[in-house]
């Protein structure tokens, strides 16, 4: 087991380095200049721009800049934002709680919807409930989040005037009101993301359960006279969950990436909207840090699911 882990970890190192090289080169080659606004403003002399470029080392060759970035990253220095003139890790840490809250609860909502609906639909395949659930799941899957987001805003904020559509990270109220306000403003973004995610998961859960429910051991369990509930919960779902767990695990990095579009629509100050503003401002250190963190997360979680997979199903051995 530990040898297996060690070997997997050794695989991670070259892929992380490879990813960072690709990201860095692509960003360096992309058009756009972080000090573009300075260039078009006549009141700012060209020397200021040249000075700033030199200060941030933008005029050096790409490979030098890469090594400098890499060296700093290894020591835990994530870089310095051109646009905000603060350390990148401060920026990211400031945005993290909101993203964790919003995306985390939307993932929870997705699970809460997908699990029972998917299992129920699979135990009664082609029933009315299954038909309705499948139709809704397909619709939810097909409608992009920016579309449902705008629809919800139109209905709940503008026509009904029930919910606010501008998300505010710091609400000045205290006590119960604070929770209530947070709940109110989170309903729409969480619902948009949760149902979108939930729709696709419902499909996965349904097909996974369908695969298992026809197996002989389930028939055996039934013929032993076990209650249907026990059969489904204890014997079917537990086994059907293995592929689902992998899938959910792989989507976890989305927590950190945030749902970029949804964050933009509802003005949720999370990592996703940070990435968008950074891209618009050509703030390369921030773009680099966010994308790099995301790709590392994908790799690490991949590794974790590999390990978890073997733990869930002992037939898969570590070699």
């Amino acid at each position, binding site marked *: 087991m530990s040898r297996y882990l060690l070997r997997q970890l050794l695989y991670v190192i070259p892929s992380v380095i490879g990813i960072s090289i690709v990201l860095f080169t692509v960003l360096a080659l992309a*058009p*756009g*200049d972080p*000090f*573009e*606004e*300075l*260039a*078009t*403003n*006549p*009141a*700012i*002399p*060209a*020397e*200021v721009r040249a*000075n*700033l470029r030199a*200060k941030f080392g933008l005029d050096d060759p790409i490979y030098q800049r890469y090594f400098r970035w890499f060296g700093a990253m290894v020591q835990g220095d994530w870089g*310095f*934002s051109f*646009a*905000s*003139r*603060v350390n990148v890790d401060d*920026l990211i840490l*400031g*945005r993290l709680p909101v993203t964790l809250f919003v995306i985390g609860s939307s993932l929870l909502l997705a699970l809460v919807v997908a699990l029972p609906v998917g299992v129920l639909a699979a135990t009664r395949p082609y029933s009315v409930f299954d038909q309705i659930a499948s139709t809704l799941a397909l619709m939810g899957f097909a409608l992009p989040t920016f579309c449902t987001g705008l629809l919800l*805003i139109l209905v709940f*904020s*503008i026509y009904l*005037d029930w919910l*606010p*559509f*501008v998300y*505010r*990270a*710091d609400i*000045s109220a205290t006590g119960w009101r604070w929770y209530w306000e947070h709940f109110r403003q989170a309903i729409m973004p969480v619902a948009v993301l949760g149902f979108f995610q939930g729709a696709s998961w419902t499909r996965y859960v349904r097909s996974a359960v369908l695969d298992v429910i026809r197996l002989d051991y389930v028939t055996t369990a039934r013929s032993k006279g076990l209650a249907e509930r026990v059969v489904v919960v204890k014997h079917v779902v537990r086994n059907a969950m293995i592929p689902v767990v992998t899938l959910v695990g792989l989507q976890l990095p989305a927590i950190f990436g945030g749902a970029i579009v949804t964050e*933009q*629509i509802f*003005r949720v*100050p999370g990592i996703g*909207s*940070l990435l968008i*503003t950074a891209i618009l*401002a*050509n703030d390369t250190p921030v773009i680099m840090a966010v994308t790099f963190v995301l790709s590392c997360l994908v790799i690490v979680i991949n590794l974790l699911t590999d390990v978890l997979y073997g733990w869930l199903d002992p037939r898969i051995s570590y070699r």
Partner: protein
Amino acid sequence: MNEHELRHLIAKVKRGALSRRGFIQRMVGLGLTAPLASQMLSYSGIAQAQAPSAYKPTKRGGGGALKVLWWQGATLLNPHFAVGTKDQEGSRIFYEPLVGWDNDGNMVPMLAAEIPTLQNGGLARDGKSVIWKLKKGVTWHDGMPFTADDVVFNWEYAADPATSTVSIGSYKDIKVVKLDSHTVRVEFPKPTPFWGDAFCSTRGMLIPKHLFDAYRGAKSRDAPTNLKPVGTGPYKFVDFKPGDMVRGVINTAYHEPNKPHFDSIEMKGGGDAVSAARAVLQTGEFDYAWNMQVEDEILLKLEDSGKGRAIITPGANIEHIQVNNTDPWTEVDGERSSAKTKHPLFGDAAVRRALNVLVDRGSVEKHIYGRTGIATANFLNNPPRFTSKNMKWEFNVDKANQLLDAAGWKRGSDGIRVKDGKKLKLVFQTSVNQPRQKTQAIIKQACQKAGIDLELKAVTAAVYFSSDVANPDTYLKFYTDLQMYTTTMTQPDPEVFMDQFCSWQIASKENKWQGRNPTRWKNDEYDKAWRAAENELDPVKRAALFIRMNDLVIENQVVIPVVYRPRVAAVSNRLRTSLSGWDNDLFNLRDWYREG
């Protein structure tokens, strides 16, 4: 309008035959800025009208929370590093300059005790110095007194190249001397007609010496106060999340009585312009939204909900078409559009004149921009009510046809005009932006009727406005025949703005396309007029020079102005603001209040 006529007008103002505001509006119509016009009057001994403040509340505070929405959030709060207006606006909540500019171009004292004039001895006759008297009894938010030392420090801080401030242009050439605890003298190296730059308006916000002194030069980025401002403004700092939220609370020790009105202020950032307009005009979640780059049709629809209105403030942005004076299709010494070449088609003045009457500004205004873009003939700002007498615009396909016929351009079998074997085919580029593409289409249609084949090209804004030397599609390289974009005047004085037609600003390979003159137009009279304006102390003579420069650019069709774009803000019905097209939206935040 020449110098003589200007003096005549000024005399009329003196006699009272023409109102001060009327004069300023007429000057703005001629393409001058309001601050410059106002300066002409004060130089001529007509005292600046101190606009009575419209502020009504009779006690400090009690106004609740003011919620403003900036769809591009402030990313930093040190005014000396504030590149874009979003950062300036964020800083402006907490910091104040000595003076700001109101909508009529008057100076509004903020931290200055009075406006320097020739009469009160503030201005030197030789134009080489200004004496600023500072307001007494002003304290920083942490209780320390505001003194002349702070002003001198701001100059030292900003002028140090190692600090890399973006305000360095306003400070690097001047000298600032402390005369006593509340008086400073700004000295210029040469006679300077426009002295309202350093310590004024957007570049003049003052930061406290006692908190920034240890962070000069290269250490500037480590100052904790970069993110936690301590200023003199009407609101004190509470919290800042870059790109997302700026929060402030009432400054109960503010240096003006009964101000400010609101107990707290919240500036939320992010999102897009349309939904920002919605949040103010339709749902009323916010009180104010900045820079409504929204189609007028949508704005009008949103205003129908009755919760707010769009306020349109004349400023100095102009959407214009540039005509390339050089040949973009031939490479000379490794660059296209080289200043050594002449454009093969635009050499014929008839073609340029025909193009000028083929731009249907009326339709562009009516169908695309509405209230947010007003047809204009002048290059410098031009509100519709005061159209310049010198320059007029018209849309006339017949006239274009006549002009081209007379010049010998004959229609070929495909309907495109030809002369001396040269086809009248042009490439017209702009950035990707829906109103711009619509405008392009309108112009292309008219050109077709006149036998000109216009090929349209749209470049992503990130590339088009970049200064990437390797990319051929930037606006400064201008490797096409025509191009269109909005140019913004960031300063109240037109001097810097107008240098974009000077021959020494021509963009070329030699200056890595950093020159600000992409049209590569070269005109000795223009150059001379600009040089003269640079040192002309008499504002009236100087104004006449600027008017002449504007007319030269238009007469020669160096540019074809399309629409003038005022600033648009969405404001809730009960909020009373104090806005100016010559300064930040929040320049006079202390005067904002909510009607009961």
